[in-house]
């Protein structure tokens, strides 16, 4: 029930954790998403690939409430329609998002970055009264350990290297304790060693959480060894194992062959 999903065999009978149903988004007549339908099963890890402009980031935007689709709906845990909620509500439902460009709070310490991400009641009145419990401190230390930033906990996040910022952001995602993690190009600008370590980290996270990874780096996708969805012009072109989709002639034509 964890790392070793038989590829391409997400059980059909369980309810999907995330279900995009005919989602269309246009910007000034350009269809960024074109009747996109996609199902992510609980505990699954899915890689989403596709050429530039295929709609990968727009898909993330729709799921996290940044962009409202023109038509279609996005169901989370079966009955919650995410298109009716704002970013904060969606985040509090248990969907975490990592941006393509690492986005951390640069003027605050690494420790505080994780503290800010910890799952709590986020309303101003509650936060105003909240201190830091011992439980929370332990949890922060635990997460800093997972993302290997323990030694840097008192440094400003802005002083971290690019790869460390990526990891800090993943750590912040973990602190949110989301059910579903959306990870946009986690290894962009990373060294090979960092890339391997990130793949390992995501697999570890996937033991307890559902993960959707958008990625350009094919070696990384291969390292993840999960079911792949190929997007093209805003809809799904192919789905299956990496070997399966990379032998698909249409995929080769639009993407891999170039």
């Amino acid at each position, binding site marked *: 029930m964890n790392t070793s999903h038989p590829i391409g065999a997400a059980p059909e009978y369980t309810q999907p954790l995330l279900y995009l149903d005919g989602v269309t988004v246009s910007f000034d007549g350009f269809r960024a998403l074109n009747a996109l339908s996609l199902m992510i099963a609980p505990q699954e890890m899915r890689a989403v690939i596709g050429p530039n402009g295929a709609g990968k980031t727009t898909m993330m935007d729709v799921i996290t409430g940044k962009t409202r689709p023109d038509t279609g709906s996005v169901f989370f845990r079966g009955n919650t329609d995410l298109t009716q909620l704002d970013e904060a509500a969606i985040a509090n439902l248990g969907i975490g998002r990592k941006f393509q460009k690492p986005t951390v*709070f640069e003027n605050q310490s690494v420790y505080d970055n994780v503290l*800010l991400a910890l799952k709590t009641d986020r309303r101003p009145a509650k936060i105003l009264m909240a201190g830091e419990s011992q439980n929370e401190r332990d949890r922060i230390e635990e997460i800093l350990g997972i993302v290997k930033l323990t030694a840097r906990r008192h440094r400003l996040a802005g002083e971290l290297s690019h790869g460390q910022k990526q990891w800090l952001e993943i750590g912040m995602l973990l602190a949110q304790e989301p059910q579903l993690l959306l990870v946009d190009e986690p290894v962009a600008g990373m060294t090979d060693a960092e890339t391997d370590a990130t793949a390992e980290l995501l697999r570890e996270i996937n033991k307890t959480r559902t993960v959707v990874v958008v990625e350009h780096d094919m070696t990384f996708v291969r390292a993840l060894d999960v079911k792949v969805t190929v997007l093209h012009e805003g809809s799904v072109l192919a789905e299956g194992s990496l070997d399966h989709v990379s032998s698909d002639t249409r995929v080769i034509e639009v993407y891999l062959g170039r």
Partner: protein
Amino acid sequence: MIAEKLGLFRSRLGWIVPLIIMGGTLLVAALNLLLPPDAALHVPGYVIALLGKYLCYALLALSLDLVWGYVGILSLGHGAFFALGGYAMGMYLMRQIGTRGVYGNPVLPDFMVFLNWQELPWYWYGFDHFAVALLMMALAPGLLAFVFGFLAFRSRVTGVYLSIITQALTYALLLAFFRNDMGFGGNNGLTDFKEILGADLQLAGTKACLLLASAALLSGFYLFCRRMTRSRFGKVLVAVRDAESRARFLGYRVESYKLVVFTFSAVMAGLAGALYVPQVGIINPGEFDPANSIEAVVWVAVGGRGTLVGPIIGAILVNFGKTIFTGVLPELWLFALGGLFVFVTLFMPKGVVGLWPSLMARLAQMRERLGYQQPQHQPEAEE
């Protein structure tokens, strides 16, 4: 490393600031009240009023720093909240005049008699009670800020656009308060005050008390803001300032945070205005002038945005400079102010408060250049 030093510097100053403010004003008040007027150390009455005015400006600057320095909302209309609080105080003071006005009307202020009004407009009811007036000093600016902020933040108006509409807000109020039929004294505003809480405003003792009240209010709000900005809540505010969308995707409802702080800041500004009015003896629509709000932004920038103590220093420094300058070369003051803003923006981005740590960093660099091997180097933030 600079930030760490700045933090250290700030934390030491944190306890000193209220002590200096309270100790300094107590000393000045004592020198004014206890020494005979011909003594060498006697502080003349006008200095008391001037200092009181500076402290009210400092509180306005502090309120602006809270929204601009910590949440990134550059309000170019904070003078409006200051003026509204001032008007609420002015209305109370007008009602205290009673039959001592030029027309001797026990209820109607002079300007209403002059306009041939027969009775007090409804919105003047209750202002003869200090408690009601006090409530309105906080409520009027707070409510305006709440409604304004609710609409603006919900629509996610940010940056320059937000600054422009705050400017429009104060300009609209300026025009409205100029009108005689608004019932706030029109062009002339409210003045000729006699007493506050039964104390004669002309007495040196009353003036000294007002100065001390300003100092106490400033110190109190300073400590409160310091505590708030260092709490978890304050960390969220800085997060909103630096990476708004990250904060949103972490589940923080950014607009609620902005609204809470903006409203609180407006109440602070209103109370500053309320204490300002009895000390300068007048409130008129000129206080809504957009230029006033912009000046307050300059104080914050000069002192050091996002430091709490900086804006207090900045407000006092710039206004002290203004008092001197307008005495000597009044026609050049605006050029000096503009020049100061340009200078600070270009050469002192962290303001006066930021000078100390950057001076230390310079020194360290120089030492390094002179051959001392310093193991610590400045890690560059990658973008």
